[in-house]
Every structure is written in structure tokens, then in C-alpha cells.
């Protein structure tokens, strides 16, 4: 069974590596600033004792006040997992750095999130609609869609 790492303990390690990256933290998840997301992700992937080499899932939640992008990370070597989150408040053009450079599995996941929620992933090599067709107006999974 994969052990879910304690977010509070892990946040301390993240703060040591990149101070003022962490916004909020609880047992289950670590919320970081979107500007320092790539830096934190790189730290989580490349630190040997963490070694998060596998991005299981990338999704986004619309809370009306802000979007919360959720990254489910797993280390296949150490068999532990972590939920990493980031927030962006701009509804017109929410921008989050892309993590395709770290995990190739983020490619389609980020395209799906862009397609249905309209989050722009900065640095994505091929950011276009995945499930809907070219020319579709709007992002239908947003709560203010319709």
C-alpha cells in the first residue's frame, strides 16, 4: 500500500529548499504559490529521499474565488504519495507553469484541464483543446459556464 506522506512534515522540507513558496498546508496536501510551482515540483522530483517520479493525476477544482490545480504525485521507488496544489485567482487568464518538462504524463492532463477549465499552462509544448473541437467557445467545466 502506498503511504500518503504527511503534508505538514513535507512542507518543512519544501520551505527549507525554497522559502515563501508554501501558502497553506494540512495533513493531506501542500498548497504552493503558482510562481514557485515549477521550482517545488523540481525539488520533489529530484531530491533522492522524496523521488516523486510519477504524476498520477492532474486536475483542477473551480471554487469561484480561485482555481485550485491539484497534482497527485507518487514515488514508485519509495512507494509514497503526495497531493500538491496551487491556486490562481485570475478568472480571465489563469496561468500556471507547465510541468511537462518534469513528467511527460502531464501533457494530455494539462491539455484536458486547459480544454475544460481554461487554465493556461505556461511552457506547455502543444497547448490546444483535447476533448472538444477547435472553435468551441468557452470552457464547459467552469462553474459559471452557461
Amino acid at each position: 500500500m502506498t503511504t500518503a506522506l504527511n503534508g505538514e512534515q513535507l512542507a518543512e522540507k519544501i520551505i527549507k529548499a525554497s522559502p515563501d513558496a508554501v501558502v497553506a498546508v494540512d495533513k493531506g496536501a501542500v498548497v504552493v504559490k503558482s510562481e514557485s510551482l515549477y521550482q517545488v515540483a523540481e525539488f520533489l522530483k529530484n531530491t533522492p529521499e522524496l523521488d516523486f517520479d510519477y504524476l498520477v493525476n492532474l486536475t483542477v477544482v473551480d471554487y469561484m474565488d480561485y482555481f485550485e490545480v491539484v497534482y497527485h504525485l507518487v514515488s514508485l521507488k519509495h512507494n509514497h504519495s503526495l497531493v500538491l496544489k496551487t491556486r490562481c485567482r485570475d478568472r480571465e487568464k489563469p496561468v500556471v507553469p507547465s510541468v511537462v518538462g518534469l513528467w511527460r504524463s502531464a501533457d494530455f492532463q494539462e491539455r484536458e484541464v486547459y480544454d475544460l477549465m481554461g487554465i493556461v499552462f505556461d511552457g506547455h509544448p502543444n497547448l490546444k483543446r483535447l476533448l472538444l473541437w477547435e472553435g468551441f467557445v468557452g470552457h464547459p467545466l467552469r462553474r459559471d459556464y452557461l
Partner: protein
Amino acid sequence: MAIEKYPMEPLNEVDVAEGLRIDSLMAASRQSIPDPDSWLDEEISRNVLVTTVDYVLDWARSRSIFPLMFGLACCAFEMIGTAASRFDISRFGMDIFRWSPRQADLMIVAGTLTWKMAPAVKLVYEQMPEPKWVIAMGQCSISGGPFKESYSVVPGVNRIIPVDVYVPGCPPRPESLLYGITKIHQKIVKESIKKA
């Protein structure tokens, strides 16, 4: 003693003609009706059946429908179940689900059709040779079903291709699909080569 002849009117031409005509009709009615197959020899006459082109063509078409193997969503599983041994679609001469639309003449649209998939379904329909028939199977393909108001689902496949028979259900039982197929048979039997 000579019998005195009963005095008779002289023969009328019209009466004579009528009498001759009645005589000929009586004579004709006593003759046996000639066998139209008398020119055939015995071996052939036992094996030839006279019928109409329409009847034979419709009979052949309705009893050897080749459905297209093509499923979009959960209704496809009921379609597969219909083809399997328990419900046995082979009873209706539909042994083989064809992979190629060029060999098929019945399209069973089984499942939810999204706008993203619509061009592919339209293309497959257009690739099928005439004559061809379409069954809309399940609520989603009839009207969009629970996704009717959705941004991504076609509200009824009849928006993009013509449909012959609608089989309601969510998903329909195999019996329903078989009933729809017999309805297609009834429709085919009514068709005429003259209209085609």
C-alpha cells in the same frame, strides 16, 4: 299424314350470331385449361417457382442483413449480448458483424454520440453501400437522453444521419433490439425495386 309445319318467323341475323357465340363459349368452357408449364420438361417444372422480382429481392435482403460492428457507449454491450449465443442474432440471418462499412448494410448506432465523434459516424454511414438502414439504439442516440442539454452530445443521431427504427431503453434489452430488427425486416419487405 304430313304434319303441318308450325309457322315460324324467319331467322334473325342477330339471334343467329348470339346463338353461335353462346355455342362457342359452351364448347370452350368444356375444354380443359391448358397448363402454362406444359412446354417445360418434368425435371424443370418441379423446380421452377414463379414470383415477383420485388418479393425475391426483399426476401433476400431482409434475411441476410450484415450489421456494422460499431459501438459508441454502454448500449454496445447489449448489442454484443444480442449477438452472443443466448439471444443469438444468427436466427435472423445476421451471423457476421462486419468490420468494414463497405460490407455492411445495417448500422446500429449503439450509445451516446458526441459532437467530436459525429464526423466519424457520418463518414462511416456514407461509406456504407446502398441499400442501407440505421437503427438508433438507446435514449442517447434517439434524443441525447440524459445528456440532451449537454454541450458535447448530439441530441439525437437523426440530426446527422437518417434513422429507420428507434429502439428505446437505457440500454435496451437484447429482446428490444431483436424487435427493432424485425421491424427493419418488415420495412425492407415493403420496399420496391421501382422506387430505388
